[in-house]
């Protein structure tokens, strides 16, 4: 009934105006459907931004955007440390895309055979094709066993060996003794639903702490002032109210942007909102061109077929029924390595010998995209105060040019916890917040308003008036949220494209036909003696930082060197670059 009343009120006003005037209604008429949890329920309503959009101001010590694996871990890590934390998420926590992960978490526990985290470190550095920052990888692999044990103590039901220790299995790219000792068994799983179990364990654990969850709040933008991040502005999808979360520390854990691709394995909600927020704030995103594809996927369906299908006798056929791999790899044929197969398929596609309907396997499925960064470069790395990122949207550059399977769930928990620890070190709970301009976030609201009314203003036909007025309601306007997500996807997409075009080499997940080789500062396939080191501008072993000007859509690129030293050279020696071959 309330909805009908609200809708009819909207309708009535809309009939009166035929221009694109925003609907005017008194604030007092609208019942705002939120309740403030947690301590300090002093949310104030103000119309400091605009009278049409009443804004609710909240104050917290820390705000986490996103409630997947990384977001939850950061949120309750902060609550545990005594911070008054808010977790703003557009999905219910257990619906985040982490739930889809089936594979496990890598950790050098040494339950199946003797293992050392330094070997895991080596595997990850090599897997990243020497684009990963070795200090971050050192941190992650060293913390991995502790992180897995912590999860197990939270109640995550890992599968067990006979003795009751966590069962570990072999997974891609993990070896012993720095690559020389054969396959390592490091992957800890929970049957075939590790991600699901991880998320539910973390969610259950987080309920012990008094984190305030703001579920189904779509984060619009960061509140930046003087280069400092002072919080987040979000739209409550349920009742259309705008909320400003002021906090000294903001953590972005919004996940990846799989949905920029037509055929992908990501959830419909993987729209890179955090990346876009950061971009609009004028900060760079790092290494967006490294997007993981899989060669045997079903076009449009968004599922992948295991590569074992080739190993078991499957044959790749083009639309003419020809076994085309024979032409590209006469000896290995269908059993050629993945990148050879992918390249052959691309050529076949381009020459028109494909048939989508006929289950032609297409190289177009995204698995995991990479990264934003919080450091602002002026020739050097500087930190944006108050802003952190973790998980798939955050880039400590652990994965570099290629993410190894089972390392991504590890990345979530380790860096989620790391964010919480760093904030706990640098800040204390209950600190007074620096002042924020009263109209902070105005631009986001203006943008949202523009999108919301973009279509309806010229409609005069009375039948359609009903439909569009409904769509323009701010309450549960999923169309509006989808449009905002599309804006975010486009920002991510354009950066990916421009970065990828600029990188004239093939490294890890970024493969180009015109530049097939890796271009490093030295040619590592030969001996280093006598070689001249290429200057920074001429090689590609560096991170790409991309900025977008939201008004013009122009992408500018800058570069930042890879960190080649580990956290502690005595504990763990850095791995010098080499050719990556398995």
């Amino acid at each position, binding site marked *: 009934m309330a909805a009908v*009343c609200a809708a009819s009120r909207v309708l009535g006003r809309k009939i009166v105006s035929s221009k694109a005037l925003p609907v005017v209604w008194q604030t007092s008429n609208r019942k705002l459907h939120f309740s403030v949890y947690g301590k300090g329920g002093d949310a104030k309503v103000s119309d400091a931004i605009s009278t049409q959009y009443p804004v609710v101001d909240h104050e917290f010590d820390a705000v986490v955007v996103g409630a997947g694996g990384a977001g939850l871990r950061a949120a309750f890590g902060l609550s545990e440390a005594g911070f008054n934390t808010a977790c703003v998420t557009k999905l219910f926590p257990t619906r985040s895309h982490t739930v889809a992960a089936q594979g496990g978490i890598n950790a050098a526990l040494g339950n199946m055979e003797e293992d050392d985290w330094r070997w895991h470190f080596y595997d990850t550095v090599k897997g990243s094709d020497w684009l990963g920052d070795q200090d971050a990888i050192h941190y992650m692999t060293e913390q991995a066993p502790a992180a897995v044990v912590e999860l197990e103590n939270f109640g995550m039901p890992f599968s067990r060996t006979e003795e009751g220790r966590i069962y570990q299995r072999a997974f891609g790219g993990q070896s012993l003794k720095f690559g020389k000792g054969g396959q390592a068994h490091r992957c800890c799983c929970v049957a075939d639903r590790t991600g699901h179990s991880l998320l539910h364990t973390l969610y259950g654990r987080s309920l012990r702490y008094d984190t305030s969850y703001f579920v189904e709040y779509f984060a619009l933008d960061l509140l930046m002032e003087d280069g400092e991040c002072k919080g987040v502005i979000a739209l409550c999808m349920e009742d259309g109210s705008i909320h400003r979360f002021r906090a000294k520390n903001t953590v972005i854990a919004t996940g990846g942007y799989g949905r920029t691709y037509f055929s992908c394995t990501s959830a419909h909600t993987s729209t890179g909102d955090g990346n876009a927020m950061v971009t609009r704030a004028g900060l760079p995103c790092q290494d967006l061109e490294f997007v993981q594809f899989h060669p045997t996927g079903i076009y449009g369906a968004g599922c992948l077929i295991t590569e074992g299908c080739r190993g078991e006798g499957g044959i790749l056929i083009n639309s003419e029924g020809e076994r085309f791999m024979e032409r590209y790899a006469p000896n290995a044929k269908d059993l050629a390595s993945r990148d050879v197969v992918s390249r052959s398929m691309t050529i076949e596609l381009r020459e028109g010998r494909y048939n989508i309907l006929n289950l032609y396997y297409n190289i177009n499925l995204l698995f995991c995209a990479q990264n934003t960064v919080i450091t602002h470069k002026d020739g050097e790395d500087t930190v944006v105060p108050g802003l952190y990122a973790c998980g798939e949207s955050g880039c400590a550059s652990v994965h570099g040019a290629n993410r190894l399977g089972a390392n991504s769930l590890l990345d979530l928990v380790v860096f989620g916890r790391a964010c919480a620890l760093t904030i706990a070190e640098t800040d204390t709970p209950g600190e007074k917040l620096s002042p924020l301009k009263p109209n902070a976030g105005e631009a986001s609201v203006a943008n949202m308003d523009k999108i919301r009314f973009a279509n309806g203003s010229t409609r005069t036909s009375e039948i359609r008036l009903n439909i569009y007025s409904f769509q323009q309601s701010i309450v549960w306007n999923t169309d509006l949220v989808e449009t905002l997500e599309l804006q975010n996807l486009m920002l991510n997409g354009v950066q990916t494209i421009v970065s990828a075009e600029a990188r004239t080499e093939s490294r890890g997940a970024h493969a180009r036909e015109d530049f097939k080789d890796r271009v490093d500062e030295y040619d590592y396939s030969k001996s280093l003696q006598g070689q001249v080191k290429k200057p920074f501008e001429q090689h590609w072993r560096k991170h790409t930082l991309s900025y977008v000007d939201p008004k013009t859509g122009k992408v500018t690129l800058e570069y930042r060197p890879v960190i080649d030293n580990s956290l502690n050279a005595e504990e763990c020696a850095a791995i010098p670059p080499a050719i990556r071959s398995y």
Partner: protein
Amino acid sequence: MRNIRFCASLAPPRSSRVYLVSLNDDAGIVIFNRQNILELCNFLLRHDTGKAHNRLVQHPRKMSLLHVCCTTVRGLVKKGLFLESTYTACLRTAGYASGGVAKDKEPVKKAKTPQGRFDMDETESKSKDVFERFPDDVHPETKEKGGPRGPEPTRYGDWERKGRCIDF
């Protein structure tokens, strides 16, 4: 009643009431008792002046309260549509017990979808598990307890399940 923009008619089962929901500026829910509908329609037709009017009609205690709110604005739905809907609603209520006494014979069932591939027997609806459980949930060879069923998912280097690659 040209001024009511008609939206929907609801005739709940076992009820002799018809709810006509209309969306005006002040949304009104017009509730009629079947027995009075025709009377009301005649009344409304007679008084169709097109002008704004507010009426509260209270019916004797025995029948349900007739609460009519109608306000103006622009007429959008023709009279015919309104009457047609009330007629349909009437028919529906006519099928129910008259005089407001509900007979609960067979509850009104939703019509089943035409027989097709989605139609399943109740007993079959429980999804069949492709992989059988191991006894005691322990894998016979690897002795893994609580692990994934079926063939080893990582045997091809990625995480494979039912032929699909889920993680790699």
